[in-house]
């Protein structure tokens, strides 16, 4: 094989690679659009009026997750199944976003921490790398941390909306989450940086609980009834 032929082959490989990336980028873009739509639905819980009909908002979000599933299904067809990490950077960001959204919906519905299995199911993907397009553990954790930050905002806004019980329940939940993260040996990577942010969320929520306590507004969270 001549040098020219060899370079032609490689050029072929590179072009194919670029085409794949282009295809992925396009699907990811529509996926981001859907993610923004779900976010808009869920963001409204922060508004005073929004606290009333959380269930209906969750339903609406669940519907939109169908679209997400379809779009991820489309994404899977764009590259060889065993080269997930080759193109990981392309969908990493959006996958963390939709994981966050799934975790947020599950929290709003049941005040529990979504498991990696549940997220995978909501997104129509796998947990184990061997079984196909999967949810990387670091992406799952990143999504959970984004939710923690959203919950600290929710604690603040639920007080504004007059719901004094929620911040205490959020506090319990987020403390548990924090304990979980302490078990992990994170490298100096983006996840570690995000986890550092969790401490501020914990602190913020603690301050809200404190504010309620000194005013005698803190009630034992009635976890039983809500779940």
């Amino acid at each position: 094989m001549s040098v020219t032929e060899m370079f032609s082959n490689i050029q072929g490989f590179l072009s194919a690679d670029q085409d794949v990336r282009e295809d992925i980028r396009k699907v990811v873009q529509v996926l981001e659009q859907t993610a923004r739509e779900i976010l808009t639905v869920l963001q409204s819980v922060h508004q005073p009026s929004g606290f009333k009909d959380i269930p209906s908002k969750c339903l609406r979000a669940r519907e939109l997750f169908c679209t997400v599933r379809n779009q991820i299904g489309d994404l899977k067809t764009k590259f060889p199944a065993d080269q997930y990490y080759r193109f990981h950077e392309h969908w990493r960001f959006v996958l963390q976003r939709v994981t966050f959204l799934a975790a947020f919906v599950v929290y709003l519905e049941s005040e529990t921490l979504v498991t990696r299995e549940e997220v995978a199911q909501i997104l129509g993907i796998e947990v184990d790398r061997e079984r196909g397009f999967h949810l990387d553990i670091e992406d799952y954790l990143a999504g959970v941390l984004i939710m923690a930050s959203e919950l600290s905002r929710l604690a603040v806004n639920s007080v504004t909306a007059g719901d004094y019980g929620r911040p205490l329940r959020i506090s319990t939940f987020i403390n548990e989450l924090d304990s979980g993260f302490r078990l992990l040996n994170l490298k100096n990577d983006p996840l570690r940086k995000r986890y550092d942010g969790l401490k501020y969320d914990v602190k913020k929520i603690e301050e809200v609980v404190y504010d309620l306590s000194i005013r005698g507004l803190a009630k034992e969270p009635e976890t039983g009834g809500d779940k």
Partner: protein
Amino acid sequence: SEDDDEGASPSSAVLSAFKTFQVELDTKHDKYERLVKLSRDITIESKRTIFLLHRVTSVPDAKEVLAEADLKLDGVRLKIRQIAEELRGEDLYQFHKAFTPGIQEYVEAVSFQHFIRHRSLISLEEINARLVFLKEDKAETKDPAEQQRMQVLTFQVTPTDYLLGVADLTGELMRMCISSVGNGDIDTPFQLSQFLRQIYDGFSYIGNTGPYEVSKKLHTLKQSLGKVEDACYTLRVRGSEIPKHMLADVFSSRAALIDPDEGVA
């Protein structure tokens, strides 16, 4: 030919000299590589120790965590011992670049543990005192004095590595402060702000007389101090809304609310 013979003999002189050079260079390079690898191991284990130590703000009893950290740090010291063995009879500074990252991370871990235990800054001397190793295997010589000398192996952390490790420690202290506030611990933040301010004053006192890497960390150090001061400020401002004696009540009841067994001493 004559030429050939005459040419061959000096030729082999030069070549044989270069063959010894090759051995010397390769030996040095191989040693350097081994030290780099030891340093990476030390870095990873020290980082893990630091992560472990952060658990103290959330568990009822710090002792267990500290004991676990002791175990981990013992493991790290075994690695440092290996470095010391590699450096036996060498000029430490010849290979310093190879292991400085690991040693800095070790200083960070060990000084973090020390702070948690004693609420004070570990000194360079104290760190170095723990890096004196006794040789376990039998010395080959029979002269007792020689044997004595052979059995002690020391590693000296340089002041600069110490400073850089301590500079990074302040980042961990800041994280610990925020966690403490988040866990309703109102004393630790004020202690930390006091301690961090002392370290910051120490670093400003040194200023730009130290090596460049130290000056570079000053900015981050100032930011960490700022975050800790902000945390104390918030505690004070929020605490201002009720009388002080009530404050303690609120926090203790608060802690009880979350988990009665987890009140931090």
